[in-house]
């Protein structure tokens, strides 16, 4: 039996979180038996598609239709449903993301499948089918039972290590029948920072808060981020005042990140900010106030003025290389 994985791409590059989803499916297949088939939509070249093999897929169904390059929710859902039927899958795995969530929800209805999002561990399938998911914005977990035959799991970043040693996947062209109605929502344009490391996918994040005093000081955050190969983030007031774009806002009402390292500079550590970062493996806090609540959630801390500490830290990271 095959486990199907829905792959997301941006400009022809497969997202790392989607490859993690492939590795998750592979670990599940190793436990349960069966193989992993990925379904990729839109223009993607062969070399890129083969990457799904190293992550654990044995086959990729490629729907090579440029109308699917953009994340048209209904069209993606319809295409993935056809792939699910073609391989007679019972389980669909995907990476949790803004598009993944939207597509998975529609598929849950189309496929009569139980859907669990924010999955943090491989399912337990001994008695019943149980999945651990993160709830209350990272403040708790729920061991969740799925009672349907078909199942969809949207996997949270870092739920599993990315596998990179798999054999090449065979690529198979796959034609789908898409009704005009699935293109009812028209994407007229996109406005996306290119070349930057995307915040939700970053392994390291450097975030600044109101303690940075103004947008003119963000070069200090950016310099450190650059040395670390990190994405930049910010607290909610910082994006509310317009110092930084909204998509960098981390927290309860913004992006939830799950990097291996989160560096918070001049952020007090309000509970709503912590809700967006509590899945980080390590947290470093730089704040001039030793009483800042963020220190209670941190692994490492420096009590000091960001304007003095940041340039020194950037130099020290540079010196490491």
């Amino acid at each position, binding site marked *: 039996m095959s486990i199907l994985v829905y792959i997301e791409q941006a400009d022809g590059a497969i997202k790392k979180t989607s490859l993690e989803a492939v590795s998750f499916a592979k670990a599940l297949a190793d436990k349960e038996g069966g193989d992993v088939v990925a379904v990729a939509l839109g223009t993607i070249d062969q070399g890129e598609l083969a990457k799904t093999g190293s992550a654990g897929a044995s086959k990729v169904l490629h729907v090579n239709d440029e109308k699917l390059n953009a*994340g048209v*929710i*209904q069209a993606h*859902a319809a295409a993935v449903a056809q792939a699910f039927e073609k391989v007679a899958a019972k389980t669909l795995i995907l990476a949790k993301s*803004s598009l993944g*969530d*939207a597509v*998975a*929800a*529609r598929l*849950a209805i*189309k496929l009569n499948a*139980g*859907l*669990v*999002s924010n999955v943090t561990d491989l399912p337990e399938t001994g008695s019943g089918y*149980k999945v651990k998911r*993160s*709830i*209350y*914005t990272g*403040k*708790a977990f*729920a*061991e*969740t*039972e*799925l*009672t*349907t035959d078909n199942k969809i799991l949207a996997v949270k970043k870092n739920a599993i290590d990315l596998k990179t040693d798999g054999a090449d996947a065979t690529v198979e062209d796959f034609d789908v029948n898409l009704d005009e109605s699935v293109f*009812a*929502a028209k*994407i*007229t344009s*996109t*406005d*996306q920072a290119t070349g930057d490391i995307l*915040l939700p996918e970053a392994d390291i994040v450097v975030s600044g808060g109101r303690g940075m005093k103004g947008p003119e000081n963000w070069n200090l955050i950016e310099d450190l981020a650059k040395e670390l190969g990190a994405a930049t983030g910010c607290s909610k007031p910082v994006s509310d005042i317009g110092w930084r774009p*909204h*998509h960098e806002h981390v927290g309860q*009402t913004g992006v939830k990140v799950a990097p291996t*390292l989160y560096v918070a500079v001049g952020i007090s550590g309000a*509970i*709503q900010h912590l809700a967006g970062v509590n899945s980080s*493996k*390590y947290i*470093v*806090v730089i704040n001039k106030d030793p009483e800042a609540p963020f*220190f*209670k959630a941190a*692994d*490492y801390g*420096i009590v*000091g003025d960001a304007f*003095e*500490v940041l340039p020194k*830290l950037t130099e*020290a*990271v540079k010196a*490491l290389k």
Partner: protein
Amino acid sequence: MKILVCITHVPDTTSKIQFTDNNTKFDKSGVQFIIGPYDDYALARAVELKEQTGGSLTVLNVGEAETEPTIRKALAIGADDAIRVNAFPKDSLFVAKQIAHYAKEGGYDLILMGRESIDFNGGMVHGMVGELLGMPSISPVMKLDIEGSTAKMAREIEGGKEYLEVNLPFIAGCQEPIAEWKIPNMRGIMSARTKPLNVVEQVSDEAATGVVEFKLPPAKGEVKLIDKDNVEELVKLLKNEAKVL
């Protein structure tokens, strides 16, 4: 235009999360409940759109009688009437089935929800309702305008946004900065007491998932403080101890 806004009744964002009954139930003691923050954005935008285009604004919640103060607050913010589907919201599918039924019955032009609930963080009810009703569902929407029978919006994507157009009716899962949260004023609070809050029965008992056990994350250890004049030490720790560099 007939607008429907679906709202959750969730613990305030500052709540300490705890469980009772052998970790099978959320512990409500000392917890204050609010309108889900994302739903609150959806509601705020709905109030503005109603002011522009006229029509009606209904809020809907699937929940037991305890959610009524939260529903009244939405009426105080500007909804005209409310529907409470009288049922314990078992899971996302269960909720979506109830919403789909009553949304269809009401014949709304625009259905606004939050991008996700802040208790179970599913981010899926809007998509499920969309599929059940055969309507487009777009999420997370950060800007929304209605021109005639067309909705124009910006949807947040990783690292930026995408602009879309779709004909009504459709469903949006909303987030900031679609509108600013509205605080009810005295007149709103007074009038909310007499606005209609219709209690209706569940139409389906179907659910696909159930929580077996809740768990809390392990407590965080003590923070290691490094002197501000010795940042090299931090870099060493990150490299050799945490092994993240």
